[in-house]
């Protein structure tokens, strides 16, 4: 049983146009624009405070839940207009998965972490649920490690394992778009490498937008890059393009400064 | 779908919870209304003559007794609480501070009727030796002060804990004494929180019934002396509710309404002040 809506195309493109996010009077990001090609991984880089996370959160409308937050501009996933009042947030968030900086498994067992969201979204049969649990855990390489303790608390796993569990939980929902908010920054180098390798395998099957402040990581796995910067107290997009265009051929002074000297 | 149901139900509960206060105010006003229309303000507020059987409903002496006993208790326990709180925070060794905090927490949990009992057993005979008959205003003030003290200390302690350590560092750098550093560095910062916390205690003392009922003597007279028995508004209600009827009963409700309004105003002002900080 699949949860995805078969009528909508998989691996849609992400279009962002003139996006501004305000928290009260404070501007987080101003008139950002970027496009993520279908099935590609775009890295969103830049110093802290330039609104990368706000941009990400406005794509799955988590900004709706922040009091006083205003979003202006146009975000489209495939043909779906994200901030259209007609668009339902639950449908949106089923298509768009998010991985957070801090691993956040539920205080439930490992298997229940994956079963609970699936059940909430309509998958009832025990057999289907167990199949999906095994499938998702295999995708992230956790199956062999935890197969004999599926009922152990998820919080007893290591940080890297927890993040992989969150990844499994997200993938089990069969999203089309993945939003990754610095998924490795809270992890040790070995766990980071494991997650990075996993993310690399996801390219092609999903359209991925990943926030990272690790330029080397972006260089390793991204197909395209968007550079953000802070301008007059507000975040903005400085340059966006393919990996070569940004890291090798860019002539924009901010990009050059940032990439060469890791300024900021 | 279920979200909507749960939201509705819990929202209903929230409305109920918020409505309780309004219900109480409405009900007290309704029950006191006949008294308000039939007894002029000049009588119930200003007359000290209380004789329900004779048609005299002067609450003044009881209002004065309530205010004076509470004020007296506050005068003792307020400054004492602040100084003790400051001392605990600045001068007490760690083990003592923790032990005292626990003690104060426990004291705050002792029911007022037990304080009243202790007052009857210990304090009244003690006061009796210097001021017969012992159950007098002074006793009530002392018992109330003991009841307010732990919370005054805890309020001070909490307010001082909010102040970042850096403030104290500057005092240390200036080689100020402990009291000096409290007075010039900590007090100005903590003053608002401490004062509002202590005013809260005044409201609590005003509303206290059982302890004063048991030790204040309960004679209706103008509270002109510490060594005279007095009756507070709260004690009056407790004593006369059992047999009052008609206008008498309605005036008792009126006195309850007065209490309610006074305390509500006080708390509202404090909350307003806290919200503006």
């Amino acid at each position, binding site marked *: 049983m699949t949860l995805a809506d078969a009528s909508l195309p998989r691996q849609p493109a992400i279009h962002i146009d003139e996006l501004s996010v305000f928290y009260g009077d404070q501007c987080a990001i101003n008139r950002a624009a970027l496009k993520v090609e279908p099935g590609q991984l775009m890295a969103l880089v830049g110093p802290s405070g330039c609104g990368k996370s706000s941009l990400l959160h406005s794509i799955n409308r988590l900004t709706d839940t922040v009091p006083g937050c205003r979003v202006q501009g146009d975000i489209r996933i495939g043909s779906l207009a994200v901030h259209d009042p007609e668009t339902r947030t639950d449908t949106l968030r089923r298509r768009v998965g998010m991985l957070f900086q801090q691993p956040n498994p539920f205080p439930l067992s490992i298997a229940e972490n994956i079963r609970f969201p699936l059940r909430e979204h309509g998958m009832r049969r025990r057999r289907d649920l167990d199949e999906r649990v095994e499938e998702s855990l295999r995708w992230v390489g956790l199956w062999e490690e935890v197969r004999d303790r599926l009922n152990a608390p998820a919080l007893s796993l290591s940080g890297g394992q927890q993040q992989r569990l969150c990844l499994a939980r997200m993938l089990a929902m069969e999203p089309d778009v993945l939003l990754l908010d610095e998924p490795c920054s809270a992890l040790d180098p070995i766990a980071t490498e494991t997650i990075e390798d996993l993310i690399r395998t996801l390219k092609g099957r999903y359209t991925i937008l990943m926030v990272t402040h690790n330029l080397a990581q972006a260089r390793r796995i991204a197909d395209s890059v968007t550079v953000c910067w802070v301008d007059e107290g507000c975040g903005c997009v400085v340059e966006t393009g393919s990996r070569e265009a940004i890291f090798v051929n860019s002539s924009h002074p901010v990009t050059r400064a940032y990439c060469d000297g890791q300024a900021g | 779908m279920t979200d909507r149901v749960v939201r509705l139900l819990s929202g209903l509960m929230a409305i109920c919870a918020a409505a309780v206060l309004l219900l*109480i105010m409405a009900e007290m006003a309704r029950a006191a209304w006949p008294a308000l229309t039939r007894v002029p303000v000049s009588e119930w507020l200003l007359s000290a003559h209380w004789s329900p059987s004779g048609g005299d409903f002067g609450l003044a002496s009881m209002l004065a007794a309530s205010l004076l006993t509470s004020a007296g208790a506050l005068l003792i326990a307020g400054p004492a609480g602040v100084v003790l709180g400051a001392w605990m925070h600045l001068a007490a060794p760690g083990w003592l501070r923790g032990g005292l905090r626990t003690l104060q927490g426990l004291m705050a949990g002792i029911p007022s009727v037990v304080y009243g009992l202790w007052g009857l057993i210990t304090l009244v005979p003690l006061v009796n030796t210097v001021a017969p008959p012992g159950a007098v205003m002074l006793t009530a003030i002392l018992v109330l002060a003991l009841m307010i003290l732990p919370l005054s200390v805890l309020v001070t302690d909490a307010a001082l804990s909010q102040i970042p350590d850096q403030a104290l560092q500057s005092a240390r750098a200036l080689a100020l004494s402990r009291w000096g550093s409290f007075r010039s560095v900590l007090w100005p910062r903590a003053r608002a929180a401490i004062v509002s916390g202590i005013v809260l205690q005044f409201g609590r003392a005003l509303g206290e019934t059982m302890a004063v009922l048991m030790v204040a003597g309960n004679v209706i007279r103008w509270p002109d002396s510490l060594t005279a028995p007095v009756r507070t508004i709260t004690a009056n209600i407790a004593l006369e509710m059992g047999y009052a009827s008609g206008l008498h009963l309605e005036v008792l409700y009126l006195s309850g309404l007065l209490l309610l309004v006074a305390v509500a105003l006080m708390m509202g002002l404090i909350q307003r002040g806290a919200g503006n900080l």
Partner: protein
Amino acid sequence: MRGMRDPIFMAAGICLVLLMVLPLGTMLLDLLQLGLPHLGLDFLLEAPRDAGRAGGVAPLLVSTGWILLVCMAAAVPVGLGCAVFLSEWLSPGSAASRWIGLSLDILSGVPSIVFGLFGYQVFAITLGMGFSILSGGLALACMVLPLLVRTSQQALAAVDVRYRDAGRALALTKTGMLGRVVLPSAAPGLAAAVVLATGRALGETAVLLFTAGYVMRMPDAVTDSGRALSVHIYDLAANVTGGLERASATALLLLALILLTTLGLHYSARVWQKRMLALGG
């Protein structure tokens, strides 16, 4: 802080500590002296005789228990529901949140005798419950409501915000999250809230004087009048000559019960902490 001479302050502090500890010490000693001889198993199991000068407090324990039960049965659903609404559906700064908070804050300052008057007027008279455990329990429920809401809110707020983030990103319903994640996580804190309210309710007297009444007999139903332990202490001390000894014994019993609930609170808080830490927080 070393090296600062402050003898007056130090002396003042020590004096004040004594000022606080001495009365408490004498209180305990006097109560023990008067009451301990009478505190035995028969005190707990017998009925009062001779207006309470002799015998025990068995029916009063039952009455007190029933009053607490009625109180919690009314206050917990309303209090928990209110707390859930405040924490899940209202944002902290919103007008509704502030008004509800203000109403509850003021309610927490209302004198207990006023609750007694209110309870008498509304429950005993208007709703026709008369002097009964029901009236007393409901009036008491109004009293402990602010405390319940505030501590329940704290318990709910203490649930890790990251769970809620995950739940939102996965498009899970609030109800689903509440049932499976939020309430189970907050359960120990919520239990502590109930225990705290129970400790408060145990000591209340003025509110019960004209709602639950004075009857010392073993109650048959919640519609019967029943005397609570706190009311018994007052009656014996103030209205019954020679009742001070039994009053002290009852006071010791009441203090022990309150202490038990406080200790239960500390214990459950400790368990909660350990559980949270073992799970990696």
